[in-house]
């Protein structure tokens, strides 16, 4: 931005091991201390307007193109909104199958976030040589761990491919249900892969818990700003990803909203626009902007819920709360909660597959336009996702509004970046470890903008520290 009035800026561009269209600017004051730090998202595609005039039944397919990492989440939220416009409830088997694909999506996405993107820092250390600090470095030095990560992600992707025909932008979740029933063979194939997947995540959890004491410093400074938490829970308080009601709690567990119907999400959540990012920032309207800062995603889902609702994950949750307290606040604990949630998702998949109804051949309700408006809410891997459409009598979209997880975490991510920068960055010296920590706090949130830019080879990375006239004061290239 051109209105920089402070003396010095550090720009981390690109932020590596998350998606490309983002950068971090660190602003220093006269004394060389960090005055501010911001995470910028610089991509603009404009889906909410592009879909005007399109038939609403196209929304799942069109909206899935928002994201190649979590297209299933958009398919689900869009299909639920169109279900509402058709005024239908999908057949019971279809609901189970949609849940199944959503859980598979969360498993593969969480595996990507934890193993591929974040674990190289955790295993090798934040100051380690970036030339080995990636998944293929893990394969050389921690082969079982790396193989567990690859296998878990592949399992989730394979389930999506078995159900939907392809891994990215599958066309299988449709308004009114799903496109085809589950055969007994595919059911058995998925069920057959679950025990190994569960063991992979349990091994990772055991390693993580044993290592936890070594990250006390990260835990203490990585985004500990108190915030509220928002997400879906079942009416009796279990973690929920597909249906349920919205609950928001304060940092100490005080209930801000409870039993809010998902249709009412826009009543609880406002959206602000900041001059420095194309990513909108959400806040809780009950608290206002910016006091209504809140977080979504695994940390939020575990904090707002009373229990996971599956046996092994509930044991892990009890242990997590014993170690971290009832409402852990540090964003570093996204990692731990992500692993516990992955275990729970796998247990839920097993449970769904055991139900005799899951192979029922009636999987799709059909109807025309029976309502002018529909809202679909589901939990994406990174947090609560909402699609809201208004249509005309012919079913053409007149208005669309989306609330995405990463926008909801935007204020908290920025607070986290600032906190980490203030702790680690000094004007007179730039180190690889210092800047890696600033990036790593973003990775905790697993922004939906994450991409595959992490895995192999040496990362291009260039940071400049500039003086008031734009002269380069320090430079770091890797």
């Amino acid at each position, binding site marked *: 931005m051109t209105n920089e009035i402070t003396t010095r800026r550090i720009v981390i561009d690109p932020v590596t091991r998350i998606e490309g*269209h983002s950068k971090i600017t660190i602003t220093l004051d006269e004394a060389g201390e960090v005055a501010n730090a911001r995470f910028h998202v610089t991509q*603009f595609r404009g889906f909410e307007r592009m879909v005007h005039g399109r038939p609403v039944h196209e929304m799942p397919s069109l909206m899935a*193109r928002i994201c190649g990492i979590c*297209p299933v989440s958009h398919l689900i939220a869009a299909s639920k909104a169109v279900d509402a416009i058709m005024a239908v409830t999908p057949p019971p088997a279809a609901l189970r199958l949609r849940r199944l694909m959503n859980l598979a999506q969360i498993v593969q996405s969480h595996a990507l976030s934890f193993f591929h993107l974040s674990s190289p820092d955790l295993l090798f250390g934040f100051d380690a040589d970036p030339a080995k600090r990636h998944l293929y470095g893990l394969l050389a030095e921690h082969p079982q761990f790396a193989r567990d990560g*690859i296998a878990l992600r592949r399992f989730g992707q394979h389930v999506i491919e078995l159900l939907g025909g392809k891994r*990215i932008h599958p066309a299988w979740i449709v308004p009114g249900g799903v496109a*085809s029933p589950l055969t007994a063979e595919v059911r058995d194939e998925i069920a057959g892969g679950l025990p190994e997947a569960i063991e992979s995540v349990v091994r990772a959890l055991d390693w993580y818990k044993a290592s936890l004491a070594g990250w006390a410093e990260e835990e203490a400074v990585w985004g500990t700003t108190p915030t509220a938490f928002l997400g879906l829970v079942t009416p009796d308080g279990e973690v929920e990803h597909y249906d349920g009601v919205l609950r928001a709690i304060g940092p100490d567990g005080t209930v801000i909203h409870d039993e809010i119907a998902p249709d009412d999400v826009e009543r609880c959540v406002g959206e602000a626009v900041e001059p420095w990012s194309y990513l909108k920032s959400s806040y809780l309207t009950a608290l206002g902007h910016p006091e209504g800062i809140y977080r979504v995603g695994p940390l939020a889902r575990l904090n707002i819920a009373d229990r996971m609702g599956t046996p092994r994950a509930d044991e892990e949750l009890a242990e997590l709360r014993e170690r971290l307290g009832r409402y852990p606040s540090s964003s570093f604990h996204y990692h731990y909660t992500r692993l516990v949630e992955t275990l729970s998702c796998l247990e839920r998949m097993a449970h769904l597959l055991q139900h005799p109804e899951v192979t029922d051949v009636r999987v799709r309700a059909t109807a025309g336009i029976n309502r002018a408006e529909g809202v679909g809410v589901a939990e994406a891997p990174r947090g609560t996702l909402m699609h809201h459409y208004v249509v005309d009598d012919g079913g053409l979209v007149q208005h669309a509004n989306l609330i995405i997880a990463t926008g909801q975490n935007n204020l908290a991510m920025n607070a986290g970046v600032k906190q980490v920068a203030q702790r680690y960055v000094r004007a007179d010296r730039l180190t690889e470890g210092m800047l890696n920590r600033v990036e790593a706090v973003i990775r905790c949130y697993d922004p939906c903008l994450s991409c595959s830019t992490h895995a192999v080879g040496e990362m291009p990375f260039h940071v400049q520290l500039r003086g008031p006239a734009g002269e380069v004061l320090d430079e770091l290239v890797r």
Partner: protein
Amino acid sequence: MAGLPKLAVWKFSSCDGCQLSLLHCEDELLPLLGRIEIAYFPEATRTELDGPYDVSLVEGSVTTPEEAERIEAVRDRSEVLVAIGACATTGGIQALRNSADVDELARVVYAHPEYLDTLETSSPISAHVEVDHEIQGCPISRGQLLDTLLAILTGRRPNLPQSSVCMECKMLGTPCLMVTSGIGCLGPVTQAGCGALCPSYDRGCFGCYGPKELPNTAALAGRWSELGIPADAVARAFRTFTGNAPAFREESDRHG
């Protein structure tokens, strides 16, 4: 790893799905690593490019002034440039906005549109620089990506399909939806590569893979009209994921 061909992956406006297709080649990727040095480039600024690179894979369309400058820099540093996916080869789904007023669009999406710096249109990579190969599809097929990389490494022509989705339906034994059910389908004019996925779920082809070589769009649109599909629906069908591809855009314009 000195001496191996260097591969770079660049992202413009897109969903990351095509880059992820490369990551999804889990089993094929490791052997490939012995043949090529892979360096991923999430973003690099104009003045800070290394290189040169033997092969650049470019995902996404050009939608901002910064991207228009960056693609030139990528071209300058790349021996072979491959545009991957519907966004890079046609402008992608975000080219839907090309027919809209971009200021109005930004106002609908953002409370403070003055913060945005965006171009009027979303355009394919080939509108800006010379492109050596194009892999179509939303997202691209893993098989076509691997074949293209191997072709470049071995100096042969990539073995990309020239037939339509119809051919894939025939090979799968999927009955023709237009003939048997009167469902509008873009299969006859869409390039093969997806494995005729939608027709196998009784849905007409959406054209994710973009126009095939010399598509007879006028004949297909005529058949749709005979099936009773209204002109505005025909116009929309050609204007979706690859609606900015000239063959589809022109056909769409003829109907609304």
